[in-house]
């Protein structure tokens, strides 16, 4: 039996659709596949629409949609991968970084994304939610179903890994790259 309030058609559009771009961006970076990301975002909206009668007006629709996205990504990963998670025991290895290199001032977006994609998913997830979507630790903790302390710890470890990878990209590719040199053609 249906519970909850009667849903107005325009209401779903007004509160849910404006978050489409943010959901898609996050999905692409989480699954690293634009086609799968599109599929996931469609699933998010289908789930959201089906459950929208239970959504309380005035509460945070964006956080609600992201929670659905996180769940959809988990289902997606269970379908296709044996999801490798990073154990808390690996932390001591990461803590041994002695000197913290400065993040280069100019980096190509492509390099930043490539470095981010290399960060383990559990850490990448919190970086995306905190740094890009600017959710609070409390909101992220609720979305992921973990304590806020775990969010902080994953953020700290994820950012540390990302800093190291960005420094590697900057030194490998040079900062502010220009198009590749090819001299074998003439412009007629």
């Amino acid at each position, binding site marked *: 039996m249906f519970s909850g309030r009667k*849903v107005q*058609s*325009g209401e*779903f*559009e007004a509160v849910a*659709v*404006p978050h*489409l*771009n943010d*959901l*898609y*961006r*996050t999905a*692409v*970076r989480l699954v690293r596949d*634009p086609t799968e990301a*599109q599929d996931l*975002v*469609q699933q998010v*909206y*289908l789930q959201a*629409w*089906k459950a929208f009668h239970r959504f309380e007006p005035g509460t945070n629709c964006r956080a609600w949609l992201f929670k659905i996205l996180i769940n959809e990504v988990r289902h997606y990963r269970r379908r296709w991968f044996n999801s490798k998670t990073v154990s808390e025991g690996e932390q001591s290895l990461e803590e041994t970084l*002695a*000197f*913290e*290199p*400065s*993040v280069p*001032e*100019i*980096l190509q*977006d*492509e390099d*930043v*994304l490539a470095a*981010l994609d290399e960060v383990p998913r559990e850490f990448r997830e919190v*970086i*995306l939610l*905190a*740094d*890009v979507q600017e959710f*609070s*630790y409390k909101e992220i903790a609720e979305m992921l179903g973990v304590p806020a302390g775990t969010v*902080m710890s994953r*953020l*700290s470890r994820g*950012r540390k890994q*990302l*800093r190291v990878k*960005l420094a590697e990209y900057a030194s490998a590719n040079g900062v*502010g*790259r*220009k*198009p590749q040199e*090819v001299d074998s*053609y*003439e*412009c*007629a």
Partner: protein
Amino acid sequence: MNVPDIGDRFCEKYRKYFDAYLDHELPIETQRDMQQHIASCSECARILDSRGRMKQLVRRAVANEEAPLELVAALRGRLQLEPRSVFARSTAGWMVAAAAVLLLAIGGISLLRWDRAKVGEILRVGLVDHIHCSIVAKQWKRFVSFQEMKDAEGPSALGPEFIDLVPEVVSKLGKDYQVVGGHRCTAGERKYVHILITGANGSVLSLVITEKRSGETFAKADAASVMRASGVDIYRDRQQDQAIAGFESEKYLAYVVSNLDRDANLDVASNLAPVVYSHLHRLEL
């Protein structure tokens, strides 16, 4: 003077909370403590600055990704099939909402309509010359003044038909961009008019114009997206790391191709499209 010292337990105490500080998650008193320490410790200030920069870099890079128009269309289709769908009853509302999302993404250009599949082939016509002439032959590296373009003769000269387009283009480019050359060239057995432009951070742009061949038109192509700037429909895509925006007049195809992100490229194209279209239209009369 502060000497960087990772072993300094005093600094370590603060550095543990740098992430929370940047995320505005610290209580106000702890924030004040932190600010006082930062003001007196150059190494901690450097690290905090670096971490803040990383947050900005990540935000910018991820935010450049934009939901494809096909996704909006596909979503609409799927939701219409749902038993509780609002969309069967309210297609117009969905269209308006979707347009609002895209308006945010493309900034100031009104979305008119979208079709379903891809516009790739006809946009590739413009990409070919940009790759050939700007990227491979690096024509943008050799600055050619307007006077030199005017004085040029022979098959590579812009000639009377197109020389006047240069100042019109200059007037519509923002201060961040500079016209660095203009000529006629051939790529893939096709003749092009090519104006070369450079911008900040190593961006290289081409305004490319070519005569239509039989049956070539964006209107009949399966377009991924169509925007309108001052009455000119603009079609866009991204191929081989280059953003492409194309539009047409009766007899010509015109393109802005660059290594900018798609939105920035579209901004340039929407600024140039009206003057280029008017110029081409005058040639057609």
